[in-house]
């Protein structure tokens, strides 16, 4: 799909989702859409570094949790406005990303080593958050209820939905830029073959650092959003591995390195989780079994994710007709 057509697609998506609260006032529906968008945002954030940069992080909760804590602490201890805190959370998470990325990429960590380092850092951050006073330790931090748009707290889910939609659209636009700009071309070149990229003038360190910074910034936004919605954060939620896993599974199931893959992946997984919970809620654990089974099936039969499905079908069609592949 060409660049301008993709932009039109993004605009259409934004307009359609933004209209949902105008069509329905159902709290359950709005909550579902809001949480699906939130899952989309973290999958998109992971996709920027993992999908386009080929750097598979297992610890994206690092940036999520840092954004969440900055959001809470800036308001509780700093007395700052929630919107200002949001800005700080995004910047702060990006700085954490640059720090971790700077260390990892400076020493050439790749593949499973990079994954392990991010995982380890997330764990370190979790333990630090448990033990220092300003995070509230294991008790966590609670935001006081002050419902007002100026406080980034809304009476209904609609307000939150629009806020998280804005971030999702921003992430879509950044992803579009990666697919249609020089930085993205460099990033994908480094992903596909770092030495070849270096030979034609790409600085892999700078490119990867840029990617982790952007990726972390969006993750920080997701963390800040989480705190505003649930008005609570603790070390387990912030730096636990579930967020890291959710981010990478959403992107991988949807299709890494694609524009719409993380959106598809996050929405499908979210639907699936909701469905199994509703259908098999009485049997504790069975929903996770089904969820896991579907995950395995997707990974086996759709190695390029849901977004790769169209491509696979086209290739099957071509080979069935005996035509050339590609």
């Amino acid at each position, binding site marked *: 799909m060409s660049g301008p057509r993709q932009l039109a697609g993004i605009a259409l998506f934004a307009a359609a989702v933004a209209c949902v609260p105008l069509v329905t006032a159902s709290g359950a529906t709005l909550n579902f859409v809001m949480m699906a968008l939130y899952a989309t945002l973290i999958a998109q954030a992971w996709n920027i570094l993992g999908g386009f940069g080929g750097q598979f992080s297992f610890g994206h909760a690092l940036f999520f949790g840092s954004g969440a804590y900055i959001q809470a602490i800036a308001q509780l201890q700093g007395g700052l406005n929630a919107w200002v805190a949001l800005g700080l959370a995004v910047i702060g998470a990006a700085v954490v990303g640059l720090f971790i990325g700077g260390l990892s990429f400076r020493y050439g960590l790749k593949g499973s080593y990079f994954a392990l380092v991010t995982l380890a850092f997330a764990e370190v951050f979790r333990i630090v958050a448990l033990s220092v006073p300003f995070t509230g330790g294991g008790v966590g931090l609670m935001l006081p209820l002050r419902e007002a748009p100026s406080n980034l707290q809304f009476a209904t889910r609609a307000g939150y939905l629009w806020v998280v939609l804005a971030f999702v659209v921003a992430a879509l636009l950044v992803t579009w830029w990666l697919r249609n700009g020089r930085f993205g*071309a460099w990033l994908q*070149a480094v992903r596909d073959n770092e030495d070849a990229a270096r030979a034609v003038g790409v600085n892999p360190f700078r490119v990867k650092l840029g990617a982790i910074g952007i990726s972390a910034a969006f993750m920080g936004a997701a963390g800040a959003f989480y705190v505003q919605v649930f008005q609570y954060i603790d070390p387990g939620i912030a730096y636990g591995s579930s967020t890291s896993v959710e981010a990478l599974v959403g992107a991988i199931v949807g299709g890494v390195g694609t524009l719409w893959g993380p959106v598809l992946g996050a929405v499908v997984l979210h639907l699936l989780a909701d469905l199994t919970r509703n259908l098999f809620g009485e049997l504790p654990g069975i929903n996770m079994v089904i969820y896991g089974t579907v995950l395995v099936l997707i990974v086996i039969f759709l190695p390029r994710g849901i977004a790769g499905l169209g491509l696979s079908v086209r290739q099957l069609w071509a080979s069935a007709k005996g035509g050339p592949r590609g």
Partner: protein
Amino acid sequence: MAEPLLVLNGISRSFGGLKAVQGVSLSVAEGSLSALIGPNGAGKTTLFALMSGFLKPDTGTVRFAGQDITGREPHRNALLGMTRTFQIVKPFAAQTVRENIAVGVHLHERSRGAALRRADEVAQRVGLAAQLDKPASDLTVAGRKRLELARALATEPRLLLLDEVLAGLNPQEIAEMMPVVRGIADGGVTVLMIEHVMQAVMNLAEHVWVLAQGQLIAEGSPAEVTSNDKVVEAYLGHGTAARLRKAAAAKGVNA
């Protein structure tokens, strides 16, 4: 007289106990098309890596375009005008041929659209125009070699280091590729190539360096180096030159 484009001075590099390159000095004149030959394991590719910054020399200096670039990273050397290709081709497999070449164009071109358009022109020069929309992973070996060349060429280098672009090609493909290399040199790009295909070296190169066991053992025109005893022995074994001469003399007597 102006300084040669590339000057190596006493370059050495060891890996553990193996002296891969020892005290190599050579200079490549701007606008020349020259070749670096030598038996397998002579250190040719290592020497390329030392020139282009993929490896740091233990001792010695590399000067390029009037600057000391010893141990400078490859991407900075590319910006200065030195680009290398790889013997084992390294395509960006997930991307199309056009996108592959555009990465090279991007060195001096910010706009994606312009880079993709320029990629078409570069593909034309190396004979890849018909395959621009194919994924790089679908190319044949010959196609991948051309792509490797195209991507390097797209950076508009002053000095192009070609690491065996003809290896693995059949005679017809070699015959098709040689004019491409010639054309690049005629276009004003200085070319230094590592090559095993002697037909290409004899036809293309103005000057040849011979590397054996990490040391330069001969240099000169292709005709000079191929008749050099040391070179013959490096390829065929100690004492071969004398044996060959004796055989030739015996043949002369019998005839």
